């Protein structure tokens, strides 16, 4: 994964002030997004799935080779012409209506971000379909920005990349700078910014286009409390204008604060889909079950999520089994 992705992978920590909030209601309208039996398979050129990995269904070799290959050949094949497949999203279906704000939760590597990119139309599905009204926009303008250039120039590049006209960008320039709260730093190259400033500018640029469907991939993580409040208000704006918001996170508290509905994704499949409080309860139970024994009540979702990776597969399966059972 590249740098652009890496910074998106922040944990959204449990914020005490998020805990007691509930996302406000907005009028719910007609369907604006229909996802039907969506499958996404990555092809990874240049890496060969190892035999051990093939046992698990997530990563397997794309081409099947004859089993009688000499050891030398096998050894060298490991480094040449490898094509692996990652089945990241496996058969997800749902419908979203105007004005809904949908959270997608799941532990690291569960397929949340891939699902989001697929419904944004950026990752072609291998089967199934996505239908939308309006233009979905993933909050991912950072890939278009150039760190060597000034914030001013990057606002123009980002705005145009989002489909605005140069005139529209100029009109919104002051608003973007104010929203990002970076002041005169906007005239310095972006590589001189602190990570918080850069993240705020990126959020400001990408939300300036006021899209029909706004998709956010854990971008609110960087930024102080004041900025968080401003971003929340921006998200509410989109919803009130009959837009739809998607928020991907593995921290349930942010999702609880911002969303009315939650999709829980695990290993590429939809485990649960329902109102925030119902799914949130089950997800919290599940995350708790992943924690290492003897460290009860760790503070916040971060500890739980990270522990999941280290924990054995047994615990994971118990958790999911319990949740699907309901």
């Amino acid at each position: 994964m590249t740098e652009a992705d890496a910074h998106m992978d922040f944990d959204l920590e449990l914020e005490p002030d998020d805990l007691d909030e509930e996302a406000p209601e907005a009028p719910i309208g007609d369907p604006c997004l229909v996802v039907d039996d969506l499958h996404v398979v990555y092809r990874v050129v240049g890496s060969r799935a190892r035999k051990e990995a093939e046992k698990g269904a997530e990563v397997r070799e794309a081409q099947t080779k004859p089993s009688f290959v000499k050891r030398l050949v096998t050894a060298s094949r490991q480094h040449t012409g490898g094509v692996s497949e990652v089945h990241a999203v496996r058969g997800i279906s749902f419908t979203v209506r105007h004005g809904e704000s949908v959270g997608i939760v799941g532990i690291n590597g569960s397929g949340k971000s891939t699902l989001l990119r697929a419904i944004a139309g950026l990752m072609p599905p291998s089967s199934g379909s996505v239908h939308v009204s309006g233009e979905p926009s993933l909050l991912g303008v950072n890939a278009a920005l150039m760190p060597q250039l000034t914030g001013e120039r990057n606002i123009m590049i980002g705005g145009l990349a989002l489909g605005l006209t140069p005139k529209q960008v100029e009109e919104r320039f002051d608003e973007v700078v104010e929203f990002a709260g970076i002041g005169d730093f906007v005239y310095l190259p972006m590589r001189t910014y602190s990570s918080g400033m850069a993240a705020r500018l990126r959020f400001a640029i990408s939300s300036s286009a006021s899209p029909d469907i706004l998709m956010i991939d854990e971008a609110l993580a960087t930024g102080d409390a004041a900025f968080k409040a401003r971003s929340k208000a921006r998200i509410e704006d989109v919803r009130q204008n009959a837009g739809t918001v998607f928020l991907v996170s593995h921290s349930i508290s942010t999702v609880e604060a911002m969303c009315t509905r939650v999709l829980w994704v695990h290993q590429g499949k939809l485990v649960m889909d329902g109102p925030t409080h119902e799914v949130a309860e089950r997800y919290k139970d599940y995350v708790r079950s992943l924690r290492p024994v003897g460290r009860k009540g760790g503070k916040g979702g971060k500890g739980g999520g990270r522990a999941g990776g280290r924990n054995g597969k047994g615990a994971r399966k118990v958790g999911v089994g319990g949740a699907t059972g309901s």
Partner: protein
Amino acid sequence: MAEQYGLRPLNVRPPLGEYIRDLMGRWSFIRVLATSTAYARNQTNYLGQLWAVLNPILNAAVYVLIFGILLGVTRDMGNSIAFIVVGVFTYRFIESSVTGGAKSISGKTQLLRSLHFPRAVMPISTVLSLLATLIPALAVMCVMVLLSGYIPGYQTMKVTWWWLLLPAAVVLLWIFNTGLAFMMARAVATTPDLDNIIGFVMRVVMYGSGVIFPLAGYIERMGVSDTVKGILGAVLEHQPVAVYLYLVRSCLTQEESIPQSGLMWALGAVWAVLFFVIGFVVFWRGEERYGRD
């Protein structure tokens, strides 16, 4: 249900007409992306944008030193420095369009996976950014051509009315290069391995197109029958890269072996349109697959 509410499917390649219209609407994005890339390229050096000019000068100087002075392969030319300088500057634009076009999709997976726009924006802006760096380099090229005329033993170069045709040759070359970049972008996006071969192919093309020395003498001396020589000579002389080199040289230099030629101008236009149209269609047909590994 999707149809009932007027939803449209995602990830379906738009029809060609709609695609072109969409692309035209993104012209300002293409332009800003191109100029920004061109500017950002040299932004972290002390000499900054000066490198856009210094780089091709040094490049040309090396070829002049080795081929023009040490090896003397261009002795039958009136002004070998002008011949090599024009060849190197022009060919560099073609070569970097091919390598840049090849990476314009495969190297930008991150961008393609986060934003929605007609993917043809990428190769077009890559070539446009190269054109933006070429323009100051062209001015330097003209100065170098003129100065080379003052060196004793080299034919004197004059500014003629033909110099006014230089922009026309560059525009044809730009259109041709964009077409090439489309083809390379699609090819490398589907088969990343090709990227490794491009460098070698481009070097063969360089020597096979008379960038540094004219090929005519070498074909004469080959041990094959006259018909083969004739065919080989005609092919090498009328292939696109050689045609564009010819056009730029015929504008700038007064070599007796390179007179202005209507046939070459016509060929230049034909190659440009042909490569652009075919390249564009080839690229468009892969549209929905870009950004996927």
